[in-house]
């Protein structure tokens, strides 16, 4: 390992600009002649629009334009799309209601987009937005995930009878039924996966500029995937042809999934800047983020496990109702289907699995991927159920896991739910976590806590997830509209420094450092001479962006492949310059040398020769600049065991996490410092879901948790420091041996926390978030 190569905790190259206040986020960018957009949003969850009178707003000071859905439709812009098809048990594709970027005759959730006011200043636009007079005919609202499809509920969309988007069964129902009938024991659990608001700290924003001379639109966006934005806005929303649309994602202040999707505001800003022929800027305030960012999770499930007399899992059966909100977000259908049901095997060799997911529409904000996306929901369900199984069988939670783990010699392991796990040593991670958490010493600690009137609990969660998204052929077979390969270009400049263009896009993950380490390691170029460039469709080749912990596992491999091409070409150039046969040229540590001699030239000299090819090998193109694409053959499957220990005050319900231990298998680590940071953040996200965060609509469809005053984000004093370790295996399908680490914590943590709290209270179950009030009530009910 070199000081700046693979495996080194290199300090991040991107930090300096952020520390100096010189980051450049979308809202930091201002252009000459810029106007400001403010959206008129629906105050009602469900209503017909009888009329919109914008005359007063139009004549208010500073107002440039007031635009509505009629204007948008007249220009043929939109509607917004959902990119993944799920075929339900009726043999039909999922029901896809019209999703206009500005309402056409009807609004379907509080915060739905009714009109946009564009003015010289934000203040003027806000003032004028209040003058837009919308006459609504209010309809009853549907908000309950569990009840949305029940008879007698208000219909939201004509195309979706009973508010059902799809009912999607998967697995052999009869075989599972038979296994349940002959089982020694059946354990079951009703549980809710609470709705979350993703809440990256930077609110969404868009800045659109139109050049009437070139007919080009430039959109600066808070995006995790600029090319995907450009593709969808262009091919499906008719904003502009791809070559006349530039999408730039500058510094992005966190995403966690919420900035993958193509949103109404982005399309409207892009359209409006051409319509009024002036730059238009929109920045969400936090309330708008709560109202109109895609939300996450929101499942209601029944989980059942059939076991033999030894606690071996025979069959798993899951019935889930998943709330998709009022409209389908860009990948809304995929999350509770493929990203959920295909992970229900978890770490266990359960031979039979049947799941049925009913996805429903409600008068709430659209629901889509949020850190983990489907996998936290699957893991929470399974890892809670496993603890219920352990209790029912009188087994220690660690023991029942061991009895059911997929054994190390079974990899690659074909699960009964499509996925074929690459590598894993689940016992190793569990053993290490048990040691790290001092599981053996828990009883004594619980006893000591009891003497102080407190109750201690310990909880295990052994998760597996699918990252490295995704093999394009698999995506196609599942009804996805895109390929999920990744691209890279590695370019030497004549003076020997390197620019790395990646189709992924960092929003906090430190790609500028990790990818530079990869290149430093492969090409032997000093890390300070390597610059990673991303996030601008005018600068980088087409790429699919960053989500699903894919950037290193897919994008990193593309970079490595481009480096290999440079080395192969460099050998030809060096052979000519060193007057040797190409086969005798070796490359190591940035130097091409003739085997067995002291003749050598640096890769920088080779690059210079390639750009100044005065004496150059015949038939070799000038230039030192290579492209590569990588389409993975399989997902990667990070896994691990997390153990949480809590101390509950039964008098107040206040729960403190006293120790949190995580042991993960991410394959090979490129930058351990960055990986550990990702684990910390993921755990905090998961603890937030388990103990603090709950997104609530009242029965009228009003979002009653629409600010940081009402929605509890994890804060520093809610969390402990974390103990993090690794139990890596070598995934055979990934050329770099990496798996992905960005979502693991958010997946592993919620069941670890709830299992611990349930253990402390001696109750069968408590739903998330386990707030002091909920814990206090549960403690009272147990007493």
């Amino acid at each position, binding site marked *: 390992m070199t000081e700046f190569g693979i495996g080194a905790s290199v300090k991040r190259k991107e930090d300096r600009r*952020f520390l*100096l206040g010189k980051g450049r986020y979308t809202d930091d960018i201002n252009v000459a002649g810029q106007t400001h957009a403010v959206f008129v949003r629906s105050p009602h969850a469900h209503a017909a629009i009888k009329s919109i009178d914008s005359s007063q707003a139009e004549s208010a000071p500073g107002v440039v334009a007031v635009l509505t859905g009629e204007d948008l439709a007249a220009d043929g812009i939109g509607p917004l799309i959902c990119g993944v098809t799920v075929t339900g048990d009726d043999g039909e594709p999922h029901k896809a209601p019209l999703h206009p970027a500005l309402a056409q005759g009807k609004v379907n959730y509080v915060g739905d987009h009714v009109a946009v006011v564009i003015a010289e200043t934000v203040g003027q636009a806000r003032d004028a937005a209040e003058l837009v007079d919308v006459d609504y005919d209010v309809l009853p609202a549907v908000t309950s995930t569990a009840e949305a499809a029940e008879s007698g509920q208000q219909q939201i969309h004509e195309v979706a009878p009973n508010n059902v988007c799809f009912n999607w069964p998967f697995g052999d129902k009869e075989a599972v039924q038979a296994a349940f009938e002959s089982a020694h024991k059946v354990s079951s659990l009703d549980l809710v996966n609470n709705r979350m608001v993703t809440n990256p*700290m930077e609110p969404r924003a868009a800045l659109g500029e139109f050049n009437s001379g070139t007919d080009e639109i430039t959109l600066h966006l808070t995006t995790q995937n600029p090319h995907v934005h450009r593709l969808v806005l262009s091919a499906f929303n008719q904003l502009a042809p791809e070559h006349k649309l530039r999408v730039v994602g500058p510094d992005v202040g966190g995403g966690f999934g919420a900035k993958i999707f193509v949103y109404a505001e982005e399309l409207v800003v892009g359209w409006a800047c051409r319509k009024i022929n002036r730059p238009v800027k929109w920045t969400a305030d*936090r309330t708008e983020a709560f109202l109109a960012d895609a939300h996450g999770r929101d499942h209601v499930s029944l989980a059942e496990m059939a076991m033999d007399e030894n606690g071996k899992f025979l069959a798993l059966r899951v019935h889930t109702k998943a709330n998709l909100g009022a409209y389908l977000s860009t990948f809304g259908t995929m999350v509770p289907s493929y990203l959920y049901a295909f992970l229900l095997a978890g770490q266990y060799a359960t031979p039979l699995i049947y799941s049925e997911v009913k996805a429903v529409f409600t008068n709430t904000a659209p629901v889509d991927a949020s850190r983990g996306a489907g996998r936290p929901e699957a893991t929470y369900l399974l890892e809670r159920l496993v603890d219920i199984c352990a209790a029912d069988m009188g087994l220690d939670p660690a023991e029942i896991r061991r009895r059911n783990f997929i054994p190390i010699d079974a990899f690659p392991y074909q699960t009964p739910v499509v996925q074929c796990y690459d590598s894993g040593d689940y016992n190793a991670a569990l053993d290490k976590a048990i040691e790290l958490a001092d599981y053996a010493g828990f009883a004594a600690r619980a006893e000591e806590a009891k003497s102080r009137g407190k109750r201690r609990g310990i909880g295990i969660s052994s998760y597996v997830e699918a990252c490295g998204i995704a093999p394009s052929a698999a995506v196609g077979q599942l009804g996805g509209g895109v390929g999920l390969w990744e691209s890279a270009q590695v370019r030497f400049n004549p003076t020997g420094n390197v620019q790395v263009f990646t189709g992924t896009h960092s929003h906090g993950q430190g790609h500028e450092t990790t990818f530079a380490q990869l290149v430093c390691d492969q090409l032997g170029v000093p890390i300070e001479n390597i610059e990673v460039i991303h996030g601008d469709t005018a600068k980088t080749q087409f790429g699919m962006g960053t989500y699903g912990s894919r950037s290193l596992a897919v994008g990193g491999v593309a970079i490595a492949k481009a480096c290999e091409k440079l080395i192969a070409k460099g050998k030809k150039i060096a052979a000519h310059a060193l007057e040797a046969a190409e086969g005798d040229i070796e490359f190591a540590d940035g130097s091409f040398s003739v085997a067995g001699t002291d003749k050598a030239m640096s890769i920088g000299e080779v690059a210079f020769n390639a750009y100044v090819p005065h004496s150059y090998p015949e038939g070799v193109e000038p230039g030192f600049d290579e492209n590569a694409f990588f389409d993975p053959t399989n997902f990667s499957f990070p896994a691990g065991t997390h153990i949480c220990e809590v101390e509950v005050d039964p008098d107040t319900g206040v729960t403190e996490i006293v120790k949190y231990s995580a042991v993960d298998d991410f394959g090979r680590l490129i930058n351990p410092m960055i990986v550990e940071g990702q684990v910390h*953040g993921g755990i905090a996200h998961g603890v937030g879901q388990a103990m603090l965060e709950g997104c609530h609509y009242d029965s009228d469809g009003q979002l009653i948790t629409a600010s940081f005053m009402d929605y509890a984000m994890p804060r520093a004093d809610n969390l402990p420091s974390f103990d993090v370790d690794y139990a890596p295996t070598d995934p055979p399908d990934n050329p770099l041996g990496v798996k992905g680490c960005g979502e693991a914590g958010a997946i592993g943590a919620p069941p670890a926390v709830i299992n611990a709290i349930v253990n402390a209270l001696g109750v069968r179950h408590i739903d998330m978030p386990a707030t002091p009030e909920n814990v206090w009530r549960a403690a009272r009910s147990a007493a």
Partner: protein
Amino acid sequence: MANNKINVSLSVNGKAVSGEVESRTLLVQFLREQLGLTGTHIGCDTSQCGACVVHMDGKSVKACTLLAVQADGSEVTTIEGLAQGAELHPMQQAFMDNHGLQCGFCTPGMIMTALDIVNRNGNELDEATVRKELEGNICRCTGYHNIVKSVQAGAKAMGGNS
């Protein structure tokens, strides 16, 4: 009415500045939009997240919760005012050394709050104190683990014991 402009004059990062603002203009808007100091961020509208923390007359304040006119005549320091030339302030350096930032959006507010914590609590800070004091700054990326370490290390370094 909102259109009535008011003149404000103050010192920002040691430089005298003045400008015309509306009565409703927030200090954070004045800094970002009129002075172009975009290092101070806006992460919420309810004074909760702390992305906008700056120092006014030596104390940390949330710049989204002060009107620009309230800062008239005061001395304001923002994240842009900490480094000495090319050299990072010890607290900034501690955040880099301890991986105390990921997306960077909350970072300026975290650092300005951290300096205020040191000013009030000294250079030897225990973990519990730092966690309690950071309650008004939200980070979604780091889980706070490394921010806490950064603040402790930065505090030490400011005392000359790095």
